[in-house]
């Protein structure tokens, strides 16, 4: 798995959620993702960056493009120093929410992407990594 290109968007205010979406839309299009796949990636980025803003107040979205054989993909990593998630398995279940939202952020993003990993420590922060591969 080679890393070709990377970058980051800092999430400090509400408008940064839209900035993150725009950055990811451009990357997905460049990588050759179709309209629906791009919408999936951008929507997942929106949900996950909103989680960062809503629960931690601030954080960062790091992105990088991936190559595995002939396949191209994109990886998004959302990191914050927020309150953390006590039960990660519970958090990716349907309907789970502690932020007064609809609880679709994590499970929804998981459905939209190919791979998801969550690394979280209560009181220290959360790191959510998602990947999507371009199918041809």
């Amino acid at each position, binding site marked *: 798995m080679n890393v070709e290109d990377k970058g980051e968007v800092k999430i400090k205010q509400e408008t940064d959620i839209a900035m993150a979406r725009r950055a990811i839309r451009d990357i997905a299009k460049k990588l050759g993702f179709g309209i*629906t796949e791009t919408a999936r990636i*951008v929507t997942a980025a*929106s949900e996950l960056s909103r989680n960062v803003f809503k629960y931690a107040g601030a954080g960062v979205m790091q992105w990088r493009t991936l190559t595995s054989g002939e396949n191209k993909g994109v990886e998004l990593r959302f990191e914050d120093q927020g309150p953390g998630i006590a039960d990660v398995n519970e958090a990716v279940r349907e309907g789970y929410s502690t932020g007064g939202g609809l609880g679709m952020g994590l499970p929804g993003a998981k459905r*939209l992407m190919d791979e998801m990993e969550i690394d979280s420590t209560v009181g220290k922060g959360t790191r959510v990594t998602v990947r999507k591969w371009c199918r041809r």
Partner: protein
Amino acid sequence: MSDESISVIRIRDVLLVTMPADPDDTTVAALQERTLEAMDLHDVRGLVLDLSKVEILDSYFARTVAETAQMVGLMGGETIIAGMSPAVAITATELGVTLGKTRTALTIDRALDLISKPGDGTRPRRER
């Protein structure tokens, strides 16, 4: 931040509210306010919410749309969502968003047809 904004125009007794391609949270929040203000200002049957330009509908945007439709309903108007693209419909469904009981139409034309028909709650139904 966003150079794209909401457009609200009145066509006869319907408001046509058009959302930009990728509204930020402030623009999404403005949907509620601008729509309800326009409802208050004009004597209309309801509104057609044109989502044909919209590229993504995340949970926040969807919740605002559903809430706005509910508020418009309380004011006595009907909301019809029109023009959602296939990519947005697929993604929103996979994400798990719903728009409550809000009616939908494929195009603005069809939405305008729907909103003026009996049985939409704005006219009494005839007894059989």
